[in-house]
């Protein structure tokens, strides 16, 4: 590995929490004025996914003993339960914040249980499960507001859950958090390449949820364009990092034809 210019965990934590909550709340308060502003929720979801991917990277590099996808599925599982709980209380604007805090609390409980009862030896297990649960909740909130155009419990239930888009959020969002480490792990793993891949995957999730949005044509078009822009930018960045980190990139050409094989 060449020179290491790592972003410290706390910076990414602040980026994820502040960016995620800011995005969700900007969307929450601006969407009643003009539904186009739901795209802020999508930006919040991207921040949360980048944060989550970095946590997965830190915890999974200790070796979970099972596949990396498990921790991504765990994050979204905790996030879904916390988000539905937080929104169901009918607290109005406090709902998303309650959902986020509840998610962190569940994450901490699961982390403590996996350390004390199951006996996992990963030192950062408790903080990691707390953080991924929070990131999972913010990701679900951000993409939900894009689809439903509101975080009112009734609207989220009918537009996101009953329509089944929650499973798209679950898998596409989980993919943005777990896939970067799963595909980049190894001795040549670098943080910037991994985070670029996470943002690229989150871009795909934003395009999909923009397509599923019921907030109006304007919101649909703007969110999908932003998603495509994120995807294109970070795909390019990721490709650049791959070329930088690879020993050599060579073009192998097409498969030989039958005559050439003779």
């Amino acid at each position, binding site marked *: 590995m060449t020179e290491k210019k790592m972003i410290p965990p706390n910076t990414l934590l602040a980026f994820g929490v502040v960016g995620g909550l800011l995005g969700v709340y900007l969307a929450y308060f601006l969407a009643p004025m003009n539904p186009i502003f739901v795209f802020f929720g999508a930006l919040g979801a991207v921040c949360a996914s980048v944060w989550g991917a970095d946590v997965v990277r830190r915890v999974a590099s200790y070796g979970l003993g099972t*596949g990396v996808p*498990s921790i991504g599925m765990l994050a979204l599982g905790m996030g879904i339960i916390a988000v539905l*709980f937080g929104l169901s209380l009918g607290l109005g604007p406090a709902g998303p914040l309650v959902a986020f805090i509840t998610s962190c609390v569940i994450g901490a409980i699961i982390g403590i249980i*996996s350390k004390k009862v199951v006996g996992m030896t990963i030192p950062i297990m408790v903080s990691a499960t707390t953080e991924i649960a929070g990131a999972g909740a913010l990701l679900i909130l951000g993409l939900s507001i894009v689809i439903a155009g509101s975080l009112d419990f009734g609207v989220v*239930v009918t537009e996101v859950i009953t329509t089944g888009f*929650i499973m798209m959020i679950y898998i596409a969002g989980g993919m943005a958090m777990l896939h970067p480490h799963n595909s980049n792990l190894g001795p040549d793993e670098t943080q910037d390449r991994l985070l670029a891949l996470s943002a690229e995957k989150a871009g795909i999730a934003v395009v999909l949820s923009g397509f599923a949005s019921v907030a109006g044509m304007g919101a649909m078009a703007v969110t999908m364009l932003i998603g495509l822009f994120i995807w294109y930018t970070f795909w390019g960045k990721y490709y650049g990092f791959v070329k930088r980190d690879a020993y050599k990139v060579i073009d192998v050409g097409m498969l030989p034809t039958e005559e050439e094989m003779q």
Partner: protein
Amino acid sequence: MIDIVGLIASNLIWILAIVIGGTLISISVHFIPVGGAPAAMAQATGIGTGTVMLAAGAGIAGIIAAGAVMAVNQNIWVVIGAAAVGAAVMLAATMIVATWIYAYGVGVMPVSAKVKYDPITKYRQDLYVSQGTEGHGIPTVAYVSASIGGLLGGLGAGLAYYALMKVSTLPVTNLNLVAVVSTFTIGFFFINSVIPSYNIVGTIEGFHDPKFKKWPKAAIASFLASIPLGILAVVAVASLASVGGL
């Protein structure tokens, strides 16, 4: 704002059912022969994917079965029985296809590396293990074990699903209720299948594997973790009835 304490107090029995469901899911994972990436290359006994994918696949099949039955019959035994059979059938189908692929595609025979004789068929195992591998394919004992695991996991998922459906005052055919309860149960199932997979660490072959003895730790962990999850789920599902327009 809703009365959280009152909701919890009046639904204690259903919270208990959810917690038992979570514990059953956790135990069920230990029965399933999970080979992970090594099994995908036929270098370890079991099905070639992770615990979470297999257990969750079985659990979701169980939830679909429970949901389909619940719309026509609300007897608890019918619902959780359908869930158990649905999950077991899903796992059995996965394994029989995997066995065909291992036998006719990869060209290895189903053999266990953890025991000398298969406890069910009494066939000799150790002679047939390829060198440098931890067994391959899905031998009879692992197949039977996974079917038991599917039954238990489906039972757990069905129990949690049934309990959450009973918490709400909405009719069981209300689409929104079914969707919210299914989403909760799936999230719940994922959490309770990840916890035991951290307990197993790597691969397991089934109830004849020495690692199977570790199951009480995961069962306690899932029991404890399911209590807060059950409470949150009950509050959210119960408050669904007070939302207008559903």
